[in-house]
């Protein structure tokens, strides 16, 4: 990679890091895991930068992040980290009841498996269609639908009183 390419890459990283880190943080739910995911995706993008610089490097980088998040190898690494640090402890819902529904929802989101959480982020934060999510994750639309359904069902199961609290408000 020559100097010009590296300068373009540095500009791209500097300008797009905040947005991409937000997505990485939503995907992982942890600051360090988000940095790790972003750097890992960036390391996979660097060797292809020459071909991507005139195309859509951000789309490529996002796709790498999404797929990396649900990949089997990364899940193994996460298990190792969990075994070492025990940092991914289950967060209990707010005991104060429905006073802070979003906090309870945030805690419930942490309990979702990476694949279901990723689908939710892509559907409800990135506002992608089911077809776009399927293309980004490299799976079928049916898989996206089933994962979304399972994720929402799990959240409803974890937060049985949320809809009642929403009505009361």
């Amino acid at each position, binding site marked *: 990679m020559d100097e010009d390419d590296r300068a373009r890459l540095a500009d791209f990283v500097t300008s797009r890091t905040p947005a991409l880190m937000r997505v990485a943080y939503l995907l992982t*739910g942890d600051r360090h895991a988000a940095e790790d995911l972003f750097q890992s995706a960036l390391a996979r993008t660097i060797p292809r930068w020459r071909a991507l610089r005139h195309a859509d490097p951000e789309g490529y980088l996002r796709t790498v992040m999404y797929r990396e998040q649900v990949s089997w190898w990364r899940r193994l690494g996460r298990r190792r980290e969990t075994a070492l640090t025990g940092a991914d402890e289950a967060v209990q819902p707010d005991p104060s009841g429905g006073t802070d529904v979003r906090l309870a929802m945030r805690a419930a989101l942490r309990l979702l498996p990476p694949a279901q959480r990723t689908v939710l982020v892509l559907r409800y934060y990135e506002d992608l269609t089911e077809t776009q999510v399927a293309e980004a994750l490299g799976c079928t639309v049916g898989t996206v639908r089933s994962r979304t359904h399972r994720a929402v069902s799990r959240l409803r199961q974890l937060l049985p009183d949320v809809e009642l609290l929403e009505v009361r408000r």
Partner: protein
Amino acid sequence: MTTPFEDLIRATLSDLAEEAPRVQDQLTPAERRFRNRRRTTVTLGAAGVVAAVLIGAPIALAAGGGEAPRPAAPSAPPTPADTTAPPSPAGPTAVPSPTDLPTAVPSPPGDPTAPSPSASPPGLPDGPLPSPSRPGAPSPVPSPSGDPGEPEPLPTPYPTPRD
């Protein structure tokens, strides 16, 4: 159309995204990671090639080492006996038992009348021909049309193929 529950998910994700950490230079560690990754790939590739050579070389040598001639196996010369009574493992064995064979040990010199197939000179039969088989028993190998004084060749112990 979205349900209130889905709106809640959206709102929560937006809140979470606002709390994302602000990081500085991510390019340098990513480049370091890329170099490590490339080094690992090259190392694993070289290790794979070495392993393939280590495993494949003995197999290739074993497969290609058959060019050396096989050790010579004694084969019976074609005899007329082959056409008449080929000994086969399924058929009667043509090897006479040691008890049936007359002793080929030369007789003591003091007994000239004793049959001695090996002691008598060829072509000069001076006594009854010794037969390897018992009298009356069918001989699987007929004697060739050679000189009557020559001792009969012992049947070959190696079975020959039928065809």
